[in-house]
């Protein structure tokens, strides 16, 4: 959606930064870092690791959603369907087929991709806002199926993970660190997918379609296929994030397939900045942490002692997040990443202008000296 996100990066700067950040994230469970107010405990303890892992799952999900909204300009309200397909697919494969973890992951992903291909192809019969409604309807059907067929999915109670097929090092609170690293690995995979989509011919085509579909068609390219492929890839990444979620939470609840979740991811992406990969990540992390912290705040004594006119809104995290979202959409259209990026660009331009001005002044000074008597 923005020029900066689409231009290929030059130099090794971003690569080095990425490697440093991932290394930092990877050694975090081995360090004793406390960030009071943000993390519930020191980073080596399960509480903080669980929150960080969840934040990474949602950051990954937001990245996959950014492929739709940011790269291809598709406003989907059904993305949770594929996340849920990953989570429930893995759960069902482990529980009813009795397969080990890895084949289970493959079954979940393939199942999710098939669903994405069918629903995506039908939804793309329409575009724009109707597309949003249709994807919402499909996700709702998925949600209803999950809720109704309690014999398979556990219904409202949710589906618990059958840990028999899962390797021991990925089960339980004692293995929070391993789960954290597993999630980090999945996050990196999804980031690389997102990077590839954005920089590949496919991503460029999808981006071009979102800007001017007619023009792309006049050039003899096929916009529909490119959009569908991006849709299916994004769904596959969401499914992978769902797999990580299932392992992390040792279970899935119907909320994982609901329109609510899609809307939550949409809020993350818009909050972070549509079209920016790092924006989606920041949005996912900020949202997850805010949601958890606000929930803790809502239950605190300080809030309980307030008069009800102030207490009721403050004790509803979703009310605060929804209001924040409205404010961001109206007043900060680029989200976090867009604002920072705009600020950077302005600063760079200003510096260049300053440099030119200094140069000119210096030139002017030397010229006047030569002309002088």
């Amino acid at each position, binding site marked *: 959606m923005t020029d900066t996100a689409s231009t290929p990066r030059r130099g090794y700067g971003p690569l080095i930064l990425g490697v440093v950040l991932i290394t930092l994230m990877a050694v975090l469970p081995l360090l004793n870092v406390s960030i009071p107010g943000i993390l519930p405990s020191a980073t080596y303890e399960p509480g903080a690791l669980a929150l960080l892992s969840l934040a990474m799952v949602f950051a990954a999900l937001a990245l996959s959603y950014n492929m739709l909204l940011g790269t291809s300009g598709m*406003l989907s309200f059904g993305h949770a369907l594929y996340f849920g397909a990953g989570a429930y697919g893995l759960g069902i494969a482990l529980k009813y087929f009795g397969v080990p973890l890895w084949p289970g992951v493959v079954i979940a992903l393939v199942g999710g991709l098939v669903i994405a291909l069918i629903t995506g192809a039908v939804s793309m019969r329409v575009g724009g806002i109707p597309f949003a*409604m*249709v994807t919402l309807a499909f996700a709702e059907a998925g949600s209803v199926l999950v809720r109704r067929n309690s014999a398979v999915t556990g219904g409202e109670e949710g589906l618990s993970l059958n840990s028999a097929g899962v390797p021991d090092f990925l089960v339980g609170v004692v293995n929070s660190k391993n789960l954290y690293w597993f999630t980090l690995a999945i996050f990196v995979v999804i980031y690389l997918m997102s990077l590839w989509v954005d920089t590949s011919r496919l991503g460029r085509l999808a981006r071009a379609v979102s800007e001017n579909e007619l023009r792309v068609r006049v050039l003899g390219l096929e916009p529909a296929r490119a959009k569908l492929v991006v849709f299916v890839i994004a769904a596959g990444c969401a499914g992978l994030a769902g797999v990580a979620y299932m392992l992390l939470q040792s279970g899935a609840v119907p909320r994982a397939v609901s329109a609510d979740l899609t*809307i939550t991811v*949409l*809020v993350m992406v818009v909050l972070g900045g549509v079209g920016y990969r790092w924006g989606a990540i920041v949005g996912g992390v900020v949202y997850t942490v805010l949601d958890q912290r606000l929930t803790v705040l809502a239950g605190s004594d300080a809030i309980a002692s307030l008069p009800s006119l102030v207490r009721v809104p403050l004790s*509803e995290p*979703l009310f605060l997040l929804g209001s924040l979202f409205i404010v961001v*959409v109206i007043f900060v*259209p680029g989200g976090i990443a867009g604002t920072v990026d705009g600020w950077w660009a302005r600063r760079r331009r200003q510096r260049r202008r300053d440099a030119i001005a200094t140069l000119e002044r210096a030139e002017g000074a030397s010229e006047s000296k030569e002309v002088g008597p």
Partner: protein
Amino acid sequence: MSTLVLVLITGAGLGALYFLVASGLSLIYGLMHVLNFAHGAFLTLGAFIGWEVARRLDTATWSTFFVSILVGGAVGAAFAALTELALIRPLYERHIEQVLVTVGLAFAAVALYQGIWGSDPIYIDSPPWMLQTTDVLGALVPNTYWVLMLAATALLASLVIFLRFTRYGTIIRAGVENRWMVTALGIDVRRAFTVVFAIGGSAAGVGGVLAGHYTGYVSAYLGSSLLIFAFIITVIGGLGSLTGAAIASVLVAVLQQFANYYLGGTGDIIVVVLLAVVLLARPAGLLGRAS
């Protein structure tokens, strides 16, 4: 035979309820190209305030029922008009942002309702007659369905009269047809936007009160579940077409009831299948124009 009659009549009644929600959505989309996710929030607020009023008056009488309907409609209209003025108007012509703002509003509103009225359903009283049944060809039809049908018919009739015979109605119809032309003629379409939002909101508010009587309770999630069916109906009927919305409402609801009775509670799935079929055959919907 009596089951068939029952399914048909309850389907039509449920369709009436859907129409109360879908008509506003369809009008708003037709004129402004705004997908209004906050429509469910208008409906739920109407239901809650209607219930609050009924609770303070003598419950379960007809006069209370009518007062709560009026209040629900007024509250829905006010909320919707305020939404249009404060949130939609500043984002003029930026459709995605407009959708996002209504999503945020729906998000925040449901959470706020939960904070105020709790997340458990609140069971409500209806006038005794509404809880009884009427015998139609051997089928015992709950009387709520008649009320729903009456309300939807009244809404459809008044909307048609408003759109055909008033100045604003003409502006709105012309705006749906070709908005730029209307603007070029020197008419301020933006006022029509607020009017359309208020009409949609009042229909949703009335729908909320009636939905409360239909399900027997009000809850913070009342609107969200109806909203999804309303979306499906507006797509099937053809976006922006009021008649399409009316036909699709009844079609969807009857089909849904049929599937629920005869195909083991698969109503919701059948509706989505119908949506897929309609999209594959006629992407613009039953009465929609190809874009």
